[in-house]
Every structure is written in structure tokens, then in C-alpha cells.
């Protein structure tokens, strides 16, 4: 774990664990209990998780909210990707901004890219271990990313780092296409103009262009 800094206390956290394997769920609960997490809620599949989250969205009061979702990828009915897309498309800010950890044994590039492009916060490649889980918790707490709302995407910023790129400029958004919002609590969005309508804009300032090419995305994932 990271050196320095004070010890975190997880007794105020509420974590939703979604997995259709009962034994895996019980191991996850055991791990969280050992780490001192205050409240764990279980759901057997994506569909059940949606019902739990729907109730959470309607509850009003401190301590009753779910803080983080850990969900398996392979589930029926409604798998982890379907659940994630539902979360990111939810009307309530309490739900759609939730940190979402996708747990999967299939950690090849296509699977990770699918989760990333669906709005995942962290990806936990199986097998499961206490350190694996703890490291994802720390990443969520210490390295939260801003959310991005683009015509075809809503979720945490997919750019985790800036890497040098010497190729042809492929970004299609200019600075005027981007708005930075300091609080997403009362967001009103009108994205009538498609990305393709400003193809000539090729030199946005650092950090302003949001559509990265597949080549760049691949370089970033490999880095």
C-alpha cells in the first residue's frame, strides 16, 4: 500500500457487491469486513443490483447511500456491463456518479476497453486477493477522475495519463466545445451538435480534447 499519509477508516463506507456466485460474494464480504468497511450490501445479479440502487436513489439521509459498486462482469440476468451502463444513464446523481469496479477474469484488451468505454471507474482482474481489492479502494479514494459527458460517453475521464504523441493531430474538438463544471449536482446538458460537425478544429489546448483515437487509446493502455 502507499507509504506516508494517515490510515483511512472505512467504517462509514457502504459497498454494494454484485456477483451471482454466492461463495465469491461471501469472500468479498469477508475481505471488506476485514478491511473495516461499515456496510456491505449483496446483490445476486445486475437486475437485483438495479433494484437495490433504485431504492438507494430514493432514500434521503446521510449514511444510507451506497458509496461504491463492486460488480462481476459475467452475470445473468443483466451482466456487469449492462449494470454499469444503467448506472451511468441513471437520472439520479447519487447513482450515475458512483465509483464502479468491474471484476472480471477476462482482462484482455477488448474486455477492458468495453468496460472503460461503458464508464467503469476501476477494473479488477481476477483472481481475487485482499491486496487487489484494497488497491482498487485506494485508487477510487485517492485518484478520482473528473466525469466527462460527451455525445457518446458519460463516465470517468478515460485519460489516466498524458503521453507524448508525435502522430498526426486527430482530435476534433476545439476549446469552445468543452465546458468545465465544478459541481455536477445540477447539470443541464444540451449536446445537439455532434462531434463530427467541427472537423476542422485541430488544436485544442492541453487537456481540452476528449475524443482520443483508438491508436492513442491503445498506447495509453499499454503504457
Amino acid at each position, binding site marked *: 500500500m502507499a507509504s506516508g499519509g494517515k490510515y483511512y477508516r472505512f467504517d462509514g463506507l457502504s459497498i454494494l457487491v454484485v456477483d*451471482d456466485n454466492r*461463495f*465469491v460474494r*461471501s469472500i468479498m464480504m469477508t475481505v471488506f469486513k476485514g*478491511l473495516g468497511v461499515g456496510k456491505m450490501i449483496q446483490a445476486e445479479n445486475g437486475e437485483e443490483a438495479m433494484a437495490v440502487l433504485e431504492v438507494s436513489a430514493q432514500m434521503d439521509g446521510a449514511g444510507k447511500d451506497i458509496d461504491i459498486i463492486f460488480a462481476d462482469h459475467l452475470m445473468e440476468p443483466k451482466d456487469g456491463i449492462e449494470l454499469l451502463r444503467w448506472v451511468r444513464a441513471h437520472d439520479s446523481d447519487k447513482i450515475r456518479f458512483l465509483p464502479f469496479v468491474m471484476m472480471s477474469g477476462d482482462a484482455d484488451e477488448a474486455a477492458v476497453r468495453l468496460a472503460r468505454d461503458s464508464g467503469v471507474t476501476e477494473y479488477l482482474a481476477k483472481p481475487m486477493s485482499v491486496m487487489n481489492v*484494497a488497491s482498487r479502494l*485506494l485508487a477510487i479514494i485517492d485518484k478520482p477522475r473528473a466525469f466527462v459527458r460527451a455525445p457518446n460517453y458519460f463516465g470517468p475521464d478515460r485519460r489516466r495519463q498524458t503521453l507524448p504523441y508525435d502522430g498526426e493531430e486527430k482530435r476534433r474538438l476545439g476549446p469552445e466545445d468543452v*465546458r468545465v463544471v465544478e459541481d455536477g449536482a*445540477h447539470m443541464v446538458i444540451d449536446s445537439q451538435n455532434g462531434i463530427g460537425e*467541427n472537423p476542422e478544429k485541430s488544436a485544442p489546448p492541453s487537456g481540452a480534447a476528449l475524443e482520443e483515437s483508438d491508436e492513442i487509446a491503445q498506447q495509453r493502455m499499454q503504457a
Partner: protein
Amino acid sequence: MNGGAMNDNVKPGAAKPTVEIIQRPNKLREKVGGSADGKPGRIDPAAIMRANSYVARLADAHEAQTKLDLTDLHAAYRRALDDAENRATHLRRIVKISDGILTLGKTFGYDLLSDFAHALNSFLIPLPDPTPAQMQVVGLHIDAMHVLVRDNIKGDGGAIGQALNGSLSVARAKLGARRNA
């Protein structure tokens, strides 16, 4: 936007942006007692040890569960062989059970068991309709997993484990999806 501050990129009178970057306060960090200076915190090593010891107590339950999973896996495999009409359903079941074995094998020291389960799924997922020879490779993986659990072979499996691993790798290389395409 109600109440949210915008950056300087937005010109007065310009068309509405196509993209928003939404900065949210890090309430989670506050909730777990993160320091105000923004310095990353830590997880108490005692909590990590406690979690590990809680998990270790479930070793016997894991072994029992894995034996059940392997029985289910073998049954799903038999059904996939015998029931061609619903083979896709049975293959999905195999992948799901194997995924469960993969998830927790290494947690309890069965590294090779997790590796075999992962290899099985990596082999099977790209095959929509496996040939009889490919189904045989699936069966070999299931048999190998049985051996690991029956003989309590942990870690990298030593000489027996590596021999099994080598044989399965050769079978996958010969009959994997690329060759089938």
C-alpha cells in the same frame, strides 16, 4: 448549468459545448478521514492482515466449494457433449463455473487451478461452436483441474503441475480459435 462554474474556454454567445468535464468534490475521501492537505492515505496493515486471516479461515469451505464446482463443471461439459441443440447454453455455464474457480483459486494458494480455469475460458470464449477435438481440449482442462484439487496441488504445481500445464498449452496452441478460423 445551474450553479456550476465554467472554464474560460466558453466564449460569450457561443454555441453550447458538446462536451462537459464535471469536477466533483471528493466526498469519499472525506468520508474515510482523508487529510485536508490532499496527501494520499493508507490502509492500516493490521486491517490487511485481518482481512487475510478472515479469508484464510475459509480455506476448507473453498476446497469444498471447488469440489462442488468441478462436479458441476464436469456435468455441464457432459451436457455440452450430449445436447448439441443447447450446446451454447451449456458452454456458457462452463465458462461461468470456470470463472468462479478462477476467481478464488489463487486466493487460497491454488495458483495453477486459477491458471487452468483462465486458460480454459480464454480457449473456449472465442469458439462459438467447438469441434469435437476442441471439446476434448475443454475436457482435458477439466480433468487437470480435478487432479489439482484431488491431489491438493498448490502454487505452481511442481513437476506434475508443470507437466500438466505444458500438455494443456500444446493442446490449446494446436486447436485454439485462430487455427479454427
